[in-house]
């Protein structure tokens, strides 16, 4: 799957953007349904949010925050590539968007643990 002509950083940046986009769009309906629990008051939503105390769920949330942040930063790189003057520093920007996503996800973890 990966290898040969795909064995370069910007193809991996694409793969990350695609996988993060796919997982986020699969998460969206679940996210909306959970928030929809509040339609009958805070109790139903709270009943679900208890789950977020579970360390496994916390880790999954870390993953989701990372996916969202990395998809946004990677998307900004693509928007700049497509709409601004060409920059030869695409690999640097791709690495920066990965780092940015990780940074924000770590911020989430620190805040959640506090």
């Amino acid at each position, binding site marked *: 799957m990966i290898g040969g002509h795909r064995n370069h950083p*910007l193809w991996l940046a694409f793969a990350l953007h695609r996988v993060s986009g796919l997982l986020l769009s699969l998460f969206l309906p679940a996210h909306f349904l959970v928030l929809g629990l509040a339609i009958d008051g805070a109790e139903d939503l709270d009943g679900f949010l208890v789950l977020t105390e579970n360390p496994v769920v916390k880790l999954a949330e870390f993953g989701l925050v990372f996916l969202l942040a990395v998809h946004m930063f990677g998307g900004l790189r693509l928007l700049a590539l497509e709409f601004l003057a*060409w920059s030869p520093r*695409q690999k640097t920007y791709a690495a920066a968007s990965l780092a940015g996503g990780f940074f924000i996800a770590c911020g989430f973890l620190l805040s959640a643990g506090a």
Partner: protein
Amino acid sequence: MVSGPDGSNSDTHEPPGEMIAVSLWRGQGSSGGLVRYDVPVRDNQTILDIVTHIQRNIDSTLSYRFACRVGMCGSCAMTVNGVPRWTCRTHAGQFTKNGRLTVEPLRNMPIIKDLVADMAPFFDKWQKAEGRFQGKDSRTDDVEPVRPDSPERKTADAGIECINCAICYAACDVVAWNPDYLGPAALNRAWTLMNDIRDTAGGERLRAVSAGDGCHNCHSHQSCMTFCPNDLNPTAAIAGLKRMAVRAVLKGEL
């Protein structure tokens, strides 16, 4: 050592016995597989030299395509260890891993036989992308001045050294996933023409390259740019077309 039929006698430069195990794709159409050949190592040996050695010394039924042997004509591109390469300018030593080498035909095109891919779909897409110059002047008109330092000419110049080798096309996964996608070479050609101030077919061309299978399908993997032997940047050219088409849509012209 007797000199080979190709006139070379460079075997004397290497210790006798050192060989490369070359796996070549042999077959017709979609049926075939890798066949192993042992080829003697030589100084400054290119992948094309290796393929030529096999055809002239081991199996004369091997089909492959080449012409200039100096990186001008774009005929000899093949897949070397999974990566598209111009074989006449690729040194074997740099690609041989543990004495092994794999040579296959280019991806994303039908195979005719052995290492020969059918490039007809690739060239058809140049036509589909309106990749031909259409001028307004006849031979009786004066030559239209084109300033070499104008932004349009510089942009066009950045993309005109394409040799139609189809390496970018073979490297492009968007082509692999959507066989109707016009591909990096045709779109790069269209972009150079969109920046040619003498050309008059800009409207039709922009419509052609921004239709369903056109430039907007590009995911900017940048494999085309990564593997282009002439260091061209089709990704940037395609981004230029995307911008131009979006501007035309917003102005109601497309």
